[in-house]
């Protein structure tokens, strides 16, 4: 009596649903159940935040990344507060869990974590942990390179550094110079020349961004300062050998003909001379302060 034969409509709907299921099966076989990548396992590993974000997880990742940046920036300006940089790793971890492809969060995050006090959290171990998570999820050569660098620069562990550089260099698409790094690590690990080579390399690479470029320039200036400090130390020893006492001011060395003028570091700030010990260093006011721990 009512129009629309139920079995005709029923059959049409059933047919369409069968086709829909078929398409789903084909797609699932070819590409997996979620959008293309293996993030499924990752989300299922108990991250509530990613669930709650529905399909907006990358946006939430951005929010956490911004929070991580703010946290890092704030604490960097306040060297004496308790629990400094405490939240840095958890925030970065959350960011990269929500968006496992967030390359910058791994790479910059690792720098923030590994930088020695007061410039960073002084936690190279966590930096390596974060980068290793990146290796597990998306396996980019950049992460190997960064891990190698943390081993080299912060931990002075040249064997491990060489190992990570080499493994990164073996990945498809990795640049040739990663293998060079590995070789440099193995032959002259703690050499200041090796450092200079590595940082110059960073500076010249086209994919270096502004922040990293500034860092590299600063590192190179610090290396220059270390060279100059070596020369100044030799001058102080020479003065002590000639006069039998330590100099109190740079002017005394100039008067003795050992220096041409009052020495300034590459940033233009005068070096300090400790008249009690004869120790030479960059001034606390210098942008180069503190100098990196000399690799041994």
């Amino acid at each position, binding site marked *: 009596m*009512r*129009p*629309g034969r*139920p079995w005709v*409509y029923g059959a*049409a*709907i059933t047919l*369409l*649903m069968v*086709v*829909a*299921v078929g*398409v*789903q099966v*084909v*797609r699932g076989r*070819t*590409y997996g*159940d*979620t*959008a*293309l*990548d293996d993030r*499924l396992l990752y989300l*299922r590993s108990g991250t509530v935040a990613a*669930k709650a974000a*529905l*399909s*907006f*997880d*990358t*946006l939430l*990742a*951005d929010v956490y*990344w*911004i929070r991580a*940046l*703010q946290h890092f920036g704030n604490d960097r300006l306040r060297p004496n507060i308790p629990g400094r940089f405490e939240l840095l790793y958890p925030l970065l971890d959350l960011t990269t869990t929500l*968006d496992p*492809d*967030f*390359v*910058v969060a791994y790479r*910059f995050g690792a720098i923030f974590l590994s930088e020695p006090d007061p410039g960073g959290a002084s936690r190279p171990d966590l930096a390596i942990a974060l980068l290793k998570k990146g290796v597990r999820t998306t396996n980019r050569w950049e992460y190997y390179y960064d891990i190698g660098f943390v081993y080299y620069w912060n931990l002075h562990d040249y064997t491990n550094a060489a190992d990570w550089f080499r493994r990164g260099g073996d990945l498809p698409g990795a640049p040739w110079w990663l293998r060079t790094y590995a070789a440099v690590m193995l032959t002259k690990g703690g050499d200041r020349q090796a450092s200079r080579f590595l940082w110059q390399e960073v500076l010249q690479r*086209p*994919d*270096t*961004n*502004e*922040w990293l470029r500034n860092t590299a320039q600063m590192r190179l200036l610090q290396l220059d300062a270390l060279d100059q400090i070596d020369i100044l130390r030799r001058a102080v020893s020479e003065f002590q050998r000639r006069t039998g006492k330590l100099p109190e001011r740079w002017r005394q060395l100039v008067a003795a003909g050992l220096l041409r003028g009052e020495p300034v570091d590459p940033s233009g700030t005068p070096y300090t001379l400790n008249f009690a010990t004869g120790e030479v260093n960059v001034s606390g006011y210098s942008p180069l302060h503190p100098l990196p721990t000399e690799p041994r």
Partner: protein
Amino acid sequence: MRVIRHIAVNVFKESVRDKVLYNLVLFAILLMAASYLLSQLTAGQDIKIIKDLGLAAMQLFGLFMAVFIGIGLVSKEVERRSIYSLLSKPIRRQEFVIGKYVGLVLTLAVNLAIMTVAYYAVLGYMAWMAGSWFKPGWEAPAMDPALLKAVAMIMLQLMVITAVALFFSTFSSPMLSAGLTFGFYIVGHFNADLKHFEAIIDSRPVVYLARALYYLLPNLAPLDVKAQVVHALPVPAAYLLLNTAYAFVYIAALLTASSFIFLRRDFK
């Protein structure tokens, strides 16, 4: 076809008059304000965040439009009895349902197109502002045409959701329809968990039931390629094609069911 076209155009006209497109202004303001704020904040990665934010906002705005206009399409006409005079015209009820659907899809498409233009404009501006310093560090160019893939998939999701909203509104109240449609949207994004239920539960029947639901409920998660596109990861054309086929077939099933229910319905 003529009848469907006229009904669709009327839906579009009404929603434009109803100031639905105002949301576009909100979208543009949000995007511009966000890009301004973010450019002060982050180290050269603001472009990625703007990309995420823009796509997420498009999806969210579209979702709200699809649900709230979608459920009103039929139920409002029935409630206000404007359908009485409409159905006395020489049209079939199925044509009414499909015309309404096409009209809302048209409205959504125009909306999304305008949002996309605004989106690219902001990205272009950001790229111009950033200068040559940051660009080598970006994963993808600012005005990456691949972003259109994500936009297309958002459109597909909205089309499915609109069909769901229309389906519910042919037999239930607007409030209930809205709730159910949002429910389907959320389920649509968690669907994959249903397929792997055996990992959690030992009961055979429950696992089969979950598996059946996985295939019957709309599966929207695979249509979400925002992250891939923003990170310049490859999204194969065949994958997009499969998604499109899935969405269209699923929509056809929903519209058939909606037409059937609507065809047999009494208007008291």
